[in-house]
């Protein structure tokens, strides 16, 4: 139902140690955002795409589809950053507009390219994590990093409930569709509202049943689950350390 969630369970990297995957994604992400260089961004983009597609076995068409998701935001906000309204035209491009110019300069064009590359590279880092590590494993990592118990429990429950509610909302939506519930604007407003309110009512009923069920199984405020253990591969640690050191070295070299 959620494509990323479905794919991450089938990834070939699913059973590598989540701590390494998490640290790799986060440290690379931080470096990428902090350094803001096109070269670093390209290296990160290529590496994470290679890892996700080749090592993880996610199909390239899916990967491209995911990379296109944040495109609207990227395009709109880059337009906002690059274009200026100014009484004098800039170096790269200008069109007259009510006695002023809509214009942009070469320098801003360059920085926009850099920004786009950095953003894409960071998104690819995020995808490396989310297309190889299920939420439950990420929660395990957070637990190891001493995130408050209450938050982790809340996240675990929310994660579980998302799918319950998605299923309900899906079937509600289908039944509305099959009864011409979305023929025109007015009906579809009505249907959307009905769907959301029904969903809320069902959600509360479910949560009440769930509490009863857990109570009858001696729930005392904490949920105990068995953790899967993942062996640590020494080679992975070596690659991880080498890659990060190279990135740091390169960014220091570029920064000079």
């Amino acid at each position, binding site marked *: 139902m959620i494509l*990323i969630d479905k794919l991450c369970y089938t990834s070939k990297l699913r059973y590598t140690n989540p701590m390494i995957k998490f640290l790799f994604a986060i440290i690379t992400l931080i470096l990428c955002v902090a350094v803001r260089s096109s070269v670093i961004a390209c290296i990160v983009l290529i590496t994470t795409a290679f890892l996700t597609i080749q090592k993880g076995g996610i199909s390239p068409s899916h990967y491209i589809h995911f990379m296109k998701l944040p495109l609207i935001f990227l395009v709109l906000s880059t337009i906002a950053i690059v274009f200026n309204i100014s009484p004098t035209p800039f170096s790269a491009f200008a069109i007259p507009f009510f006695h002023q110019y809509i214009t942009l300069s070469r320098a801003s064009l360059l920085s926009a390219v850099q920004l786009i590359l950095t953003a894409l590279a960071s998104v690819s880092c995020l995808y490396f994590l989310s297309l190889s590590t299920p939420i439950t494993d990420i929660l395990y990592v957070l637990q190891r990093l001493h995130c408050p118990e209450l938050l982790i429990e*809340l996240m675990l429950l929310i994660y579980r409930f998302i799918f319950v509610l998605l299923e309900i909302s899906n079937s509600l939506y289908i039944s509305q569709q099959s009864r011409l519930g979305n023929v025109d604007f007015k009906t579809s*407003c009505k249907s959307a509202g009905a769907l959301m309110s029904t969903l809320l009512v069902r*959600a509360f009923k479910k949560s009440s049943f769930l509490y009863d069920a857990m109570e009858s199984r001696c729930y005392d405020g904490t949920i105990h689950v068995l953790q899967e253990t993942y062996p640590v591969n020494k080679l992975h640690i070596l690659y991880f350390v080498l890659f990060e050191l190279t990135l740091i070295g390169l960014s220091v070299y570029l920064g000079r």
Partner: protein
Amino acid sequence: MKTKQKKIIFSLTLLLLPLVCSPTVNAMHIMEGYLAPKYCIAWGVLCVPFLIAGFLSIKKTLAEHRKALMILAMAGAYAFVLSSLKIPSVTGSSSHPTGTGLGAVLFGPFAMSVIGIIVLLFQAILLAHGGLTTLGANTFSMAIAGPLLSYGIFKLCEKLKVNKLVAVFLATALGDLFTYVITSIQLGIAHPSEVGGIGASIGKFIGIFAITQIPLAIIEGIVSVVVMIGLESYAKSELTDLGYFKGGAIHVK
């Protein structure tokens, strides 16, 4: 006159066409990697007091009613699912609501801040809306500023004895708009314009995203009103459970 009107409508449609063709309209999450580290950290730090307040209020509620954990988790899942539902749109592209305004009215702003950051984390990981580095900025605009305003407007309307449905519409629509203005300000500060600096940049962001966000806010307001009518008419007993959240706006007497 009529032909002139037609011409105006036609040219407006042409102008908006490229945006209408965009596949989906979402709430305005700042994308991963779009903010420099200092802004990521600054917005994150700004969120901390609200999150701690929310965390403590949840802890207090849980100490009294253990069942509240389930309800809170359902509320979080509800907020997540809400943002993935299709709502009707005038343009024909599919659009998704923000859901935080309605959440704030139902569950109260402080609980919403903690739920909000979890939902935003899941949205980043599962849907690639927003990101991990921009989590702080997105949390501030969507889980703190927007909901607080929504809640404030709702309470104000209650004081002024405005019709409840009008209050819900104003709270959710204005909360949405406020979220989008805050996001524009965040983007403007991080990427000042070459001429006019931060102010001009904020103006540009507000102007460009208005095309997607203003219709979204209005429709979300309408839909939230329908939700409220639905809940009031056949879910009063379920809503009593919401009484656990002291901040929640609907108390059933």
